[in-house]
């Protein structure tokens, strides 16, 4: 969610102001901002401008830092700024947010429901199934399940986003293979996945010469639509009609025929900006049981879910309605090698936990997964210089004490009388050793 904000931040002021011509976008952006910034907008909304000293008085003296932060982010989004000693709200943003709140202005920003009734009855269940199937087709394609449906939009996006890559010297789309990034992607929840794709789409649309304002507005409009309602295609811009065509393949919207004048948003789309995970509705309820002996029972028949599980499980047996696997050191380490993190595994198991498990993983398993991860980070490579063969224990202790005091010691072993220092430390150690040697010689001469 934060990534879309970051993307919007990079747009220039003119583009931002054009973006704010849609009430739906203003509302969505307002909701994404930090709480203090929201309240500042609300206070400015019906006033327009407030003198800076007054604004400073809104906040307790001890919290002025958070005010500065909020003002900076409003400035970055070109929503409000300090001008001639007053805080001024962007008029376009002000007008359109007001429209969203009290009505008036552009009537199609939140989608225009169609006038006539659809001849065919499109039920909510149908839309859910449609969204789920389309989205799973995309994921299946990612894990490499053979299938006939391969819309170009999906293929280009997969490759462009780096989730899949062709091996060198190959140009056939059939040769696309999943990358490390793709593995990580599979373990994210659906909402994150959808946003990941949309951001990628946004980047590619700019290369294709589509207007980013149109694209973003459509994203936010989708997020504000009502699930189960049909909306008119006619009020969309040409760019948005093209997007409708592309997003169909991901199951975000449903359109019965290409020429149909109405479209239905699915739950994948309407939950876009709400931050509520779409997975709970579109995906299955939890199906994974993890036992303290590292056995994992997954009540699923979906090849996709099994493929995802096999990313970090050693599958042992498969039955009509379930698969059994074991979390082993090797299987989990392989997942780590693919760039998956222990948190992702934990998150995935928790998100899809069977209701019987009450959403809590066995602590032993969680700890072990963590340990297996930290195990890989046990050895750290650093350039070093080794000191050894000290004739006497005293000399070793003095030398290592000196190095330790200056914080140069990377490693030391009292038994072996060896220690390693950083290269910077080596220069100082050399000086120290020469000094020591001179002292010894002087002592011997004195004797």
């Amino acid at each position: 969610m934060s990534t879309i904000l970051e993307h919007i931040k990079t747009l220039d002021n003119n583009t931002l102001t054009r973006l704010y011509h849609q009430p739906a976008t203003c509302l969505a952006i307002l909701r994404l901002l930090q709480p203090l910034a929201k309240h500042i907008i609300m206070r400015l909304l019906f006033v327009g401008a407030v003198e800076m000293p007054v604004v400073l008085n809104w906040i307790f003296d001890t919290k002025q830092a958070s005010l500065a932060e909020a003002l900076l982010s409003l400035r970055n989004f070109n929503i409000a700024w300090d001008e001639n000693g007053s805080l001024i709200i962007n008029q376009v943003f002000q007008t359109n947010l007001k429209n969203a709140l009290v009505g008036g202005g552009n009537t199609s920003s939140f989608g225009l429901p169609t006038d006539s009734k659809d001849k065919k009855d499109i039920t909510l269940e149908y839309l859910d199934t449609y969204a789920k199937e389309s989205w799973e087709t995309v994921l299946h394609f990612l894990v490499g399940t053979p299938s006939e449906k391969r819309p170009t939009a999906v293929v280009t996006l997969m490759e462009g986003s780096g989730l899949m890559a062709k091996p060198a010297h190959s140009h056939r789309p059939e040769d696309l293979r999943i990358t490390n990034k793709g593995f990580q992607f599979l373990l994210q929840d659906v909402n994150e996945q959808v946003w990941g794709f949309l951001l990628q789409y946004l980047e590619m649309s700019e290369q294709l010469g589509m207007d980013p304002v149109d694209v973003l507005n459509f994203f936010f409009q989708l997020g504000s639509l009502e699930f189960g309602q049909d909306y008119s295609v006619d009020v969309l811009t040409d760019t948005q009609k093209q997007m409708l065509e592309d997003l169909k393949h991901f199951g975000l919207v449903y359109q019965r025929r290409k020429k149909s004048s109405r479209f239905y948003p699915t739950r994948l789309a309407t939950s876009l900006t709400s931050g509520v995970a779409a997975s709970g509705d579109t995906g299955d309820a939890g199906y994974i049981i993890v036992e303290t002996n590292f056995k994992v029972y997954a009540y699923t028949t979906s090849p996709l879910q099994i493929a995802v599980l096999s990313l970090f499980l050693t599958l042992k047996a498969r039955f009509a309605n379930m698969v059994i696997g074991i979390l082993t050191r090797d299987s989990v380490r392989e997942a780590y090698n693919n760039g998956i993190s222990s948190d992702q595994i934990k998150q995935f198991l928790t998100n899809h936990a069977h209701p019987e498990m009450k959403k809590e993983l066995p602590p032993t398993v969680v700890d072990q997964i963590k340990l297996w991860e930290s195990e890989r980070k046990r050895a750290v490579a650093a350039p070093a210089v080794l000191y050894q063969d000290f004739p006497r224990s005293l000399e070793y202790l003095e030398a290592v004490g000196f190095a330790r005091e200056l914080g140069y010691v990377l490693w030391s072993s009292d038994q072996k009388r060896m220690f390693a220092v950083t290269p910077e430390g080596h220069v100082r150690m050399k000086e120290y050793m020469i000094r020591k040697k001179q002292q010894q010689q002087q002592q011997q001469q004195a004797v």
Partner: protein
Amino acid sequence: MDIPLLVVVVDLFPSPANSVAAKGKLDSGTVERILNQLLVFINAHLALRFDGRVAVVAAIAGRGSHLLLDSADLSNASTDIKNTGGMYKQFKVVDDVLVQKLQQLLDFDRDSEENYNKQSCLAGALSLSLSFINRVKRQHTDPASTIQARILTLSVSPDSPSEYIPIMNCIFAAKKDNVIIDVCRLLGNDSVFLSQTASSTDGIFVKVSDVDNLITVLLHSFLPEPSIRKTLCLPGGTLTNYSASCFCHKQPCSIAYVCSVCLSIFCSRRDSCSTCGSSLTQQ
């Protein structure tokens, strides 16, 4: 994650004997102006967060309290969604439902003059709000988030002495449940009970005399949710009159007799406590 739940208690119908309505100030035009600004405020609350939730409870003298609206349950709303006039659909539906329901209550009430002589039922409305909050909290099963509830009371009716004890009980219940009760006092007359309510539940007490400025006050002082009130400098801190009311005549009193067993307050000396029945005669 806290899910903000706001319960607005609307108490717009005072008894005319000793209040402003008798002088004709609170005519239907004023009510409409107040209502319009309240609708904008409710929309603003819903606009801040996707999961924001609003309920409205109306307290009507002589007619009891009614739960008019719960933004999470709008399934039976009969709004024409084609004509939202550029508004976000959820806002439009909430507005329509609220206006419709209030209209029904008002129409019913308008003809019968004797209703105006009944006493306010603010305590009832507060109890209803607290029960509603409690129900929402119990029904909320997602362990990842909690319900952060507060009550905003828009009130004009004067204190009615018989409500002292029920209101006090509401205060204790609210404190126990961590519910903040904010009070917006319209038309500028004072209320001892409500200022006590606000200050003992960490809420804000604001008097608004100019009804047309209501929206500014609402957005400035009452929109911030409890979590951000530590940052924002909000009005309040005015001296609260903590004087208690006696249990026998329900009149405020500064010096009184207190039952040594149950702490009931009486303005005159008695032989036995009317609340717990203990004998108070000197041995």
